[in-house]
C-alpha cells in the first residue's frame, strides 16, 4: 500500500515514515500544507493519505480530505488530537487515529486498512486505536461482524 504523509510536525512525519515501511507499506511522500498535499495526491495517487487536521496553512485537513477523495479518489485517514471535532461524515475519510497514538496503534491501523483497501472487506473489527467512519465501516462489512466485549 502506498502512503502519503500530510503532517506539519516534521519529526512526527519522520517517525511515521519508519512505521509505514516497517509494516511493509511504501512511504511515497510528505506534505506539510494542504496545497502541497493536494498536488502530491494528484501526482502520486497514493492508496492512503495520513492527514493531520492542523497543517501549515491552518485547520485545513478536513477540507483537504474531501478534495483528495473527490478530485483524485485518494482515501484519507485522519490523525488528530481532537477526534470529537471531526464532522459526522468524516469528510469522506475512512477513519481516524487519535493522537497521541502509539507505535503499535498506528501499525495495527495501517495493517488493518491495507487489508480493507485491498479486499474491499474488513478482516475483523477495527483495532483499538482506529475509529472507522460509519460509511466505510458499512462498505467493508464491519457492521455484520459479531460484537466482542
Amino acid at each position, binding site marked *: 500500500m502506498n502512503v502519503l504523509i500530510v503532517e506539519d510536525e516534521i519529526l512526527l512525519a519522520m*517517525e511515521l515514515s*519508519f512505521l509505514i515501511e516497517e509494516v511493509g507499506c511504501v512511504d511515497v511522500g510528505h506534505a506539510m500544507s494542504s496545497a502541497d498535499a493536494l498536488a502530491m495526491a494528484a501526482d502520486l495517487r497514493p492508496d492512503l493519505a495520513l492527514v493531520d487536521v492542523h497543517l501549515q496553512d491552518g485547520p485545513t485537513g478536513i477540507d483537504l480530505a474531501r478534495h483528495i477523495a473527490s478530485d483524485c479518489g485518494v482515501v484519507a485517514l485522519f490523525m488528530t*488530537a481532537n*477526534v470529537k471535532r471531526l464532522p459526522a461524515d468524516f469528510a469522506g475519510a475512512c477513519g481516524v487515529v487519535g493522537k497521541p497514538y502509539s507505535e503499535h496503534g498506528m501499525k*495495527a491501523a495501517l495493517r488493518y486498512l491495507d487489508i480493507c483497501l485491498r479486499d474491499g472487506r474488513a478482516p475483523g473489527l477495527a483495532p483499538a486505536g482506529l475509529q472507522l467512519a460509519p460509511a466505510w465501516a458499512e462498505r467493508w462489512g464491519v457492521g455484520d461482524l459479531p460484537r466482542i*466485549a
Partner: protein
Amino acid sequence: MTTPGFLPPLTRRRVASREGEAAGRGDLERALAEKTALLHEVDHRVKNNLQLVSSLLLLQARHAADPVVRQALRAAQARINAVAIVHRRLFQGEDPERFDVAAFLRDMVEDVIGGSGRTDIRVTLDLERTDLPTAQAAPLALLISELLGNAILHGFPDGREGAITVTAAREGDQLRIEIADNGVGVPTTGSTPGIGQTIVKHLCSQLRADCQVADAGPGVRATVRLPLDGVH
C-alpha cells in the same frame, strides 16, 4: 445618608443590576465559552506534545547503536506511552474530571501485549467499570504499565507461551486491580531493586495504594488495592 436629588444607593444598585442582568449573562456566557475553548486548546496541545515526545524517543531509539542504550530508550518510551494512552481518552468522555479505569485497562493491555508482538500470550480481561479522578490517571497508568511489562518480560522469557488475566473489581471502598500470569514465577529476591520496582513503590505511595506481588504457583499475581474515597 440619602443625598436629595439622587436615588438611594440600594435602589441605584437594583436599577443597575436589572439593566445589567442581560448584559451580565451575555458576558458570563462569553467568558464560559472562552474558558471552554481555552481548555480544549490546552488539551489539544498536551496531546500533540505527548505525541511529539513519544515519537522523539522512538526516533532516538532507532538511531542508538548500543543495544543497552536502545533498550533504555525503549523502556522510557513505554512509560511515556502509558501516560499517552490515558490522555488519549481524557476529554473525550462526558466528565473531564473522571476517567473510566476499565476502558483505560482495555486500551493499555491491547497496546502493551500487541506492541510486544507476543501472540503466544493469551489475555483474559474481567473489568468492572469504575471512574476515578483524572488526577490519578497518569500515576495509575505508569503503575499498571510496570506490572504488565514485568508479567510479559519476566513471566514468559524466551518465547515461553502462557496466559495473563487482568481483573478490575470494586471491593467495598477499594478498587482491586490484579494482573496474574502463569509464567515462570517470582524473580524478585536478591539484587538491588531496578527502576521499575522503585517506580511501583513510589507510585503506590503517591496513590495511597497497596501493591502485593506474590507467587501464584504457577506464575505471579500482582494485586493493587486503591482507595475509592467517595467515588461512584
